[in-house]
């Protein structure tokens, strides 16, 4: 029913825009990663594999990438451990308070990411809320210095930020489970734990995958929490990229690292999508 002209009119503008402002920039990042910087600090537009050789040669890049993945994996795990039971409670036990509790999960998302990270800094600092509270209650004589400026602080803050994001898709998938399946399991003599592990949990796996992937990927690329709370031991891969694009002024090397991250993320999305399809029952 829609004419050719109509279809062209709705297709061409977004296609052009997305090509110019998404596709070309990502391709440009790819190109940059094969370019180099001259002594005069200008970008040389000739092709070389030097940036990738540098990445393979210098251990710091690999170590930092693995540390970032380890931090992201912990954030993902803790977000799941906090988020899944929360989603389960809301979906199966909250009854009339469901809507209210759901909104309570959403509200923290509307408080600036930066401000929440900074609030953790004021809580964890050596003269911060937690340490002065410990001294006030005489639980500790000296401030605990390890709380702030450590990978712990980064994991804690990112877990705080990504728990609601992880919980939401899990909750959505729990809500989609037909309740008569659960009742059937009970009626057929399944214990609560059997019902959970053999009926509910498998049906919620798509939500778990979406939430876990989201938390892992976005914490992997974070550079603000490490800058605010990470200290030297909490440096992540994006911090290296930021410095290569800033003070160190080596855009091509920075682009090569970014491209590795991009490939890693797209690979993870691919795997997650495959698993999601496998576990999707609808």
């Amino acid at each position: 029913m829609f004419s050719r002209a109509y279809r062209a009119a709705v297709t061409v503008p977004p296609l052009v825009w997305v090509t110019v402002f998404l596709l070309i920039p990502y391709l440009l990042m790819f190109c940059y990663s094969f370019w180099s910087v001259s002594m005069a600090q200008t970008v040389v537009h000739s092709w070389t594999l030097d940036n990738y050789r540098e990445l393979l040669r210098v251990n710091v890049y690999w170590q930092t990438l693995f540390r970032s993945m380890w931090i992201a994996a912990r954030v993902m795990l803790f977000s799941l451990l906090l988020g899944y039971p929360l989603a389960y409670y809301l979906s199966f036990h909250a009854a009339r308070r469901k809507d209210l509790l759901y909104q309570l999960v959403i509200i923290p998302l509307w408080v600036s990411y930066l401000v929440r990270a900074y609030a953790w800094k004021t809580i964890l600092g050596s003269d911060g809320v937690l340490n002065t509270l410990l001294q006030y209650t005489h639980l500790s004589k000296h401030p605990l210095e390890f709380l702030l400026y450590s990978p712990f602080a980064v994991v804690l803050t990112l877990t705080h930020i990504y728990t609601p994001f992880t919980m939401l898709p899990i909750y959505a998938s729990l809500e989609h489970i037909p309740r008569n399946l659960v009742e059937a399991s009970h009626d057929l003599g399944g214990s609560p734990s059997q019902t959970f592990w053999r009926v509910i949990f498998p049906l919620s796996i798509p939500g778990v995958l979406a939430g876990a992937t989201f938390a892992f990927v976005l914490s992997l690329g974070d550079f603000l929490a490490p800058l605010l709370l990470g200290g030297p031991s909490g440096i992540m891969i994006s911090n290296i990229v930021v410095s290569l694009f800033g003070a160190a002024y080596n855009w091509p090397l920075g682009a090569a690292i970014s491209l590795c991250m991009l490939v890693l993320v797209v690979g993870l999305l691919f795997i997650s999508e495959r698993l999601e399809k496998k576990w999707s029952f609808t």
Partner: protein
Amino acid sequence: MELHMSNDTNSSSGTRWLLVHTVAVFAFLYLPIAVLIVYSFNGEGVGGFPPHNLTFDWYRMLFADAAIWESVGNSVVVALSAVAIALAFGVLAALALDRAQFPGKALFRRLVLLPLILPGIITGLSLLMLFREADVKLSLLTIVLGHGTALISVATTEVFAGLQKLDRAQEEASLDLGASYWQTFWRVTIPNLQLPIIGAALLIFTLSMDEIAVSFFLIGRDNTLPLEIWGRLRRGITPEINAISTIIFVFSLVAIVIWYRLRVRTEGRPAIAELIEAAVQGN
């Protein structure tokens, strides 16, 4: 619907454990927000327990602080422009995905959704390289282009979901009765998509107001609010940040209530969850 499993002692202790867990997670989620609000009234500044010398000094300082308010103004301008761009292209993209076949459609869909799931640094840097190669000076305009582009996905996802439920017979009738495509678009299609469009606009506005990872790389001379806050945080802990955050929090609460009412009126479907799933699964 609530499930009652209280005839089983094992499960009722399980339920109690679940309740404790839920309360603990909420405490964890709200602790920093509570700290933020309480210490915005603390005379001794940030940190130190218990808080004492309640004061409005930080709010007074804040209202006298021209740089902060200028950045708030910049952020509002950026967010409104981002809403305009993202809606304009997002609505068209949703129509294209719903009604047209074209080569590269699957790739197009993925590409639109990519900025939602990619760490902001990748989108920010790739746009930075584009502007560098095209010799575009960084300014609020480059941030607008960044936000507008990255958030097209929000409008597309919301509007596309709305289109799935739209009855095409109305548009067909309009066309049969002699209305042009242009008239049909403005008088039938758009009014029917009102709620997803308003929902998307609110979401895009709030996301843009808070965005920092992409803006971080595209900033020119003028700061947006998150970047202004960032600059101050780097210099040390400043209590007026607590004050501005508290004010924004109160405004956000109002926005959430409006937004949630809208969602409930459509059907109470958790839009953020759908966005996350769409972003991860690429469809």
